[in-house]
């Protein structure tokens, strides 16, 4: 089968790889119908996630058709069209049973600090991902969800990560009616977080980035204010001026390790890898939020350390909430929102790229070419 093949930092290609096999009674094999490139895939692509082995297939946002199931699979059957949450979760451990599906204790042997994620290095479990024609899906009784009748595949594939992650960012922010919300990062997740902030009753939503086409897109899609940090100067002063000197009620870091905007962070975090990525957005979030406010983190960082003003967290009495999205917990509500037209995820998709051109897709997305917001890979079997 065709599959994306990681060869080293900023080098990927399409290759023939062996078909995945059932390795556990709860496994399913899924024929992929849609697979996205995610902003967090760029951390892998850039070589910033430890234990990313040459030969790995990335891809944690995908939909597909079940073509084979293990002997203990009862919740899906061959022929079902499913969307597959990016977390691999057993559903039985103490954490899954408390709906922390992103923190499963029975799916990632390699690390205890992160649950398992499809195609996201051996630090996240060593599973191949969905940027391929076929993929092995463990714990098929837990993750895969049958796509409701009539739902567009493009909407479904974004329910595997982008929508739940953006929604959980707003949920973790504890937004109360009338709150002023600052979202850092106008990528797909940041845009979705801004959109979802309204669902929790935000009074004002501002999104911050430095890519003009993304800000323009965010302004229209999420009906929010959009600001280019290269034009407004000191962000903390900006936030204070906008809130009568008090600070935003909540701040959301939807950027993570690839943040731009601070030379010291960029050099030490992204170029020299002396920290687990550039923590510029988190730094800003901490300094822009009000005293006693909440900082919600969904931007992904590496497993080592980052330079952030932790003293300000203490002195301002901040609450920091962060997690990988618990996709399965959120899906029922989010499917409802999509079906009722409250959320329109597929409008985020700007590029449909043949799987065979995966290398071009990564370059397009990482270099932000051709006004790319969200690229989706289409396997050849779907096209035909």
């Amino acid at each position, binding site marked *: 089968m065709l599959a994306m093949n990681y*060869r080293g*930092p900023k*080098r*990927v*290609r399409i290759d023939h790889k062996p078909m995945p096999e059932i*390795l*556990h*009674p*709860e*496994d399913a094999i899924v024929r992929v119908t849609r697979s996205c490139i995610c902003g967090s895939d760029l951390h892998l692509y850039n*070589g910033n996630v430890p234990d990313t*082995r*040459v*030969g*790995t297939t990335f891809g944690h946002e995908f939909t597909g058709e079940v073509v084979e199931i293990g002997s*203990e699979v009862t919740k899906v059957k061959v022929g079902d069209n499913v969307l597959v949450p990016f977390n691999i979760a057993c559903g*039985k*451990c*103490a954490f899954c*049973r*408390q*709906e922390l599906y992103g923190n499963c*204790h*029975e*799916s*990632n*042997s*390699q690390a205890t600090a992160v649950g398992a994620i499809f195609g996201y290095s*051996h*630090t996240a*479990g*060593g*599973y*191949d991902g969905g940027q391929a024609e076929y993929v092995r899906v463990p714990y098929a009784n837990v993750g895969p969800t049958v796509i409701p009748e009539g739902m567009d595949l493009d909407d479904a594939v974004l329910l595997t990560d982008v929508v739940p992650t953006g929604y959980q960012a707003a*949920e973790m922010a*504890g937004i*109360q*009616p*009338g709150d*002023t919300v600052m979202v850092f990062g106008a990528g797909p997740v940041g845009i979705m977080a801004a959109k979802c902030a*309204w*669902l*929790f*009753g*935000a*009074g*004002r939503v501002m999104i911050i980035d430095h890519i003009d086409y993304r800000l323009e897109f965010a302004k229209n899609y999420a009906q929010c204010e959009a600001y280019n940090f290269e034009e407004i100067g000191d962000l903390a002063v900006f936030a204070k001026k906008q809130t*009568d000197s008090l600070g935003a009620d909540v701040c959301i870091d939807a950027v993570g390790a690839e943040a731009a905007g601070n030379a010291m962070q960029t050099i030490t975090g992204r170029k020299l890898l002396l920290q687990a990525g550039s923590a510029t957005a988190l730094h800003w979030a901490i300094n822009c939020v009000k005293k006693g406010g*909440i900082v919600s983190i969904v931007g992904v960082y590496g*497993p080592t350390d980052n330079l952030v003003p932790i003293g300000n967290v203490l002195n301002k009495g901040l*609450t920091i909430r962060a997690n990988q999205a618990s996709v399965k917990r959120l899906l029922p*509500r989010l499917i409802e929102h999509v079906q009722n037209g*409250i*959320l329109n995820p597929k409008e985020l998709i700007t590029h449909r790229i043949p799987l065979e051109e995966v*290398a071009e897709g990564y*370059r*397009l997305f990482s*270099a932000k*070419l*051709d006004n790319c917001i969200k690229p989706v890979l289409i396997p050849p079997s779907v096209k035909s």
Partner: protein
Amino acid sequence: MENTDFINKRGADYKHIKGWGIDADPKNDPTYPMKRRTNEEHKGYTWERPTQQAQTVEILHSIERPNLTAVFGTSVPPSGLSGMIRRMAFKKSENEYGHWLPLILADRVNVVEGVIDDFMHGTFPNIFVEKGYVAQWRHDKPGLFAKLAVVAAITAGAVFLMTRKNDDD
């Protein structure tokens, strides 16, 4: 005199937004637990575990847990020099730089191993294609040319320096 740059703009015309406030939850303040708390973890690692996946390839596991997880990924088992470094890294916990830094080193070694492996299988890596420069050519020719110019300048500089050194000899 008061600085009039500071305003209290709280938003106003937002209720036209479809779905505004439908998920508002007054209990969702920082003291309200996100998870459905059961305290099950207080009993320890005692839940009924899923069926154990058979181990058919080498899997390195964190020393912060006693066993392999019931299910695990089997892509790209450790091999070669990078595999030796990874095995060494997994003797340290996730709490140690001695775990993560060798893994990053192993990743870089693995890239070289990948190129050697390609050659051994008769494949010459097409760097232009693998780096996705086709997309750059299609959508950002000036950027691509600038990149090529920088590479050419660095190469020319290096050649010049090496040549000059030879001339000095």
